[in-house]
């Protein structure tokens, strides 16, 4: 940042402790950051990006259901690698979600209790926030059904475009692969939402 903002960076740099044996008196002569091969870690990037998207999902669910405290979160990891990633990050998730009290990572969907709102993280995981007893069931069912209908509509549109006769020949293979992945995700999400509706219905009993 120093080349772009010379004054404030010097001021702050002067307040920070120096590395051992660093006698350089000014940021003006400090070494500019470079690409460091050792730091290049796309696995860490991917994993923490996933964790962070879980955090964002919980935040948005919490605001959607207007829940501000004592949150109980379940993360359904669909493969063991994802499970490991989340299991090690529950503290960090807790830190980044205001009002989160308990974060559980589970391997099976059946381990998630009834009465949760959900957000899907691709094919790898589903994030649940327990809303039972804190929301109006009728409203939530209607809301979820509306969401499911929207996803179904998007899916049908995609199916229709894939069904066109020159789709196989004219659309680039990478796009076709993307479409296929998207379709799978839509189906997955629809199923999750349908399940969610059932779960809300279960709350009535």
């Amino acid at each position, binding site marked *: 940042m120093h080349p772009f*903002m010379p004054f404030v960076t010097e001021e702050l740099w002067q307040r920070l402790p120096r590395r051992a044996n660093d006698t350089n008196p000014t940021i003006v002569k400090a070494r500019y950051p470079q690409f460091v091969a050792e730091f290049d870690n796309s696995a860490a990037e991917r994993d923490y990006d996933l964790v962070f998207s879980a955090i964002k999902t919980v935040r948005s669910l919490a605001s959607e259901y207007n829940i501000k405290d004592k949150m109980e979160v379940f993360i359904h990891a669909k493969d063991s690698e994802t499970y490991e990633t989340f299991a090690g990050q529950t503290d960090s998730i807790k830190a980044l979600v205001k009002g989160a009290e308990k974060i559980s990572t589970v391997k099976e969907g059946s381990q998630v209790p009834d009465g949760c709102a959900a957000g899907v993280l691709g094919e790898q995981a589903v994030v649940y926030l327990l809303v039972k007893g804190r929301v109006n069931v009728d409203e939530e069912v209607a809301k979820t059904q509306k969401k499911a209908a929207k996803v179904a509509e998007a899916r049908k549109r995609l199916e229709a475009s894939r069904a066109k006769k020159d789709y196989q020949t004219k659309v680039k293979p990478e796009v076709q692969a993307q479409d296929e992945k998207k379709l799978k995700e839509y189906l997955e999400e629809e199923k999750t939402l349908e399940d969610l509706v059932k779960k809300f219905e279960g709350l009535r009993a």
Partner: protein
Amino acid sequence: MIPAPPPNVTGALHIGHALTIAIQDTLIRWERMRGKTVLFLPGFDHAGISTQSVVEKQLWKAEKKTRHDLGRSKFTDLVWEWKEEYHTKIKNQLKRMGASYDWTKEAFTMDENLSEAVLETFVRLHDEGIIYRDNRLVNWCCQLNTTLSNLELDTEELTGRKFLSVPGYDEKVEFGIIVSFAYEIEGSDEKIVVATTRPETMLGDTAIAVHPDDERYKHLVGKFAKHPFIDRLMPIVADDYVEKDFGTGAVKITPAHDANDFAIGKRHNLEFINIMNDDGTFNENTGPEFNGMKRFTARKVVIEKLKERGLYIETKDNAMSIKLCTKSKDIIEPLLKPQWWVSQKQLAQDAMDFVRRGDIKIRPATSEKEFFTWLENIQDWCISRQLWWGHQAPAYYVYFEGEEHNNLPGDDTTRWVVAHSEESAQEKAKAKFPGQKLTLVRDPDVLDTWFSSGLWPFSTLGWPKQTPDMTNFYPNSVLETGWDILFFWVARMIMLGIKLTGSVPFKEVFCHSLVRDSEGRKMSKSLGNVIDPLDIISGTTLQKLTDKLLAGNLDPKEVETAKKYQKTAFPDGIPQCGADAMHFAMCHYTTGGRDINMDIKVVDGYRKFCNKMYNATKFAIGKFDQDFIPRESGALTGKESLVEKWILHKLSKAAHITNQSLEERNFLVATDAVYQYWLYELCDVYIVSFFPP
């Protein structure tokens, strides 16, 4: 090495300087942090015309005196005093903007060694015949009383009749017309009809030209037309240049006041009658009725008198373009004057060859294209200026014994000697005119400011001496400036650099955009959209902005327009943004486009970003133990958590993008990368992950 484009000593810095400084300083700081030895050389330009006219105005305001009342030496002393005052002021402003210049190498175009470079260049180019004296039509500004180069003019396109304000006239003057009138043929009842867009120039007519094949006029060629107001007979000549089908097919010829007529005058050996004084009034050659009359008053009077004599025919609308002086907005008058010229064809050819060969990379591509277009069509450069402030030409006019002179050079272009000093001029003159008793009179004119600016990349390093700085820093690395001075400055530095040092003056040219207001208009005092960079740094109120308007010399109508804009753009004044926010914003605005529409709110946003950095650093310091000393190396320990691995990965990636983008001079992407890293990765994620659950 980056040479800072030297700001004029004439006035305050504007937002364009802030942009220039931000880009150059970013490159310099970045390269310095990458371990290179850098030189960021600051300096100032004496700005001949601008500075002299400001001081003249002040002298008139304060003491009701002109420069002639003081005399040359006293007046230039006064300009030096004024220069010292403003120089100090501007230097302090520059320092506040955060540029990491090496002030020990500061240069001024009129420093002793830089003046020596000008002298050396003039003598060398004159000896080689590249600088020559010629009596030609020049662009004369009656208001500033000096010659101007083609680059110092504006063009206004007229679609037809239009009244324009001209300095020195209370009433507006009519342009965009073509007036037809008749000349009587001597010794016959015939008349010949001609047309002109500048009726007053008929007082300088010395011939009528027709096409040699034009049957209508064949019998008149060789006869004479009579001037109605002056005792003058004008030959009717035949010339291919005349278009038979245009107008009446007969053209009035004013060799001393029109570029085309000048050429015809030379071809037919016509009389060149200068009808104008330097101040735009007519001289004794126009006869008693017009002598002393102002040129545009004469435009009306000529038509009236033609009517009286029954010679006037008609006036029609005429689409045309007129040339104005960029500085004074006066209408340029073509006048015949002996001046110093630089022959530029070969210089331009060499410059193009070097750039084509890849010795200089010009970015962006639009600027490179303009560079070639301009050089391919280059014309010779008139470098004489009738001013006192600047580098006086080292040229001496030779008078032989018995010749009268009033200490001014004459018109004979072969009588000149050019030398470093008067003594060596004496020797050169004796050699040139052996056996003659001689007196030398030095050319009182100074040289175009851009002549000295054109030497900037090497004159600042000590050239013509071969100094250590020349060895270490020449050619310079990057020449960075606004695209608007590509021709004024960049092209001339390349031409003169190659000619004088044999090498390109720099390896790269980067032309940045021009800063415009939030509505995309050019910044101008009369629009009220000029922003002082210091107001962005320290903040100001709407009232103070308005006060500044009133302190300037705008006309009341302009003040109103300006006030209106200020009210909409800065209803709450300008917030205090600080130098860093401005520095960053200017880089972020540099997208490679032509223009930047600057919005003060964007700059203010980066001030908030500074707070964010401050808070993040404060948080980090709070986390460290009092006696915490970071490890000697930043290498991984293997104990890093996922979020730590993640942030290190992001840091390395951001550093990679920033370095690469700065290499490519892509300031938008470079600033985006650091900004995104700090805000969305370091602050929003990494630091937040430390907050207690």
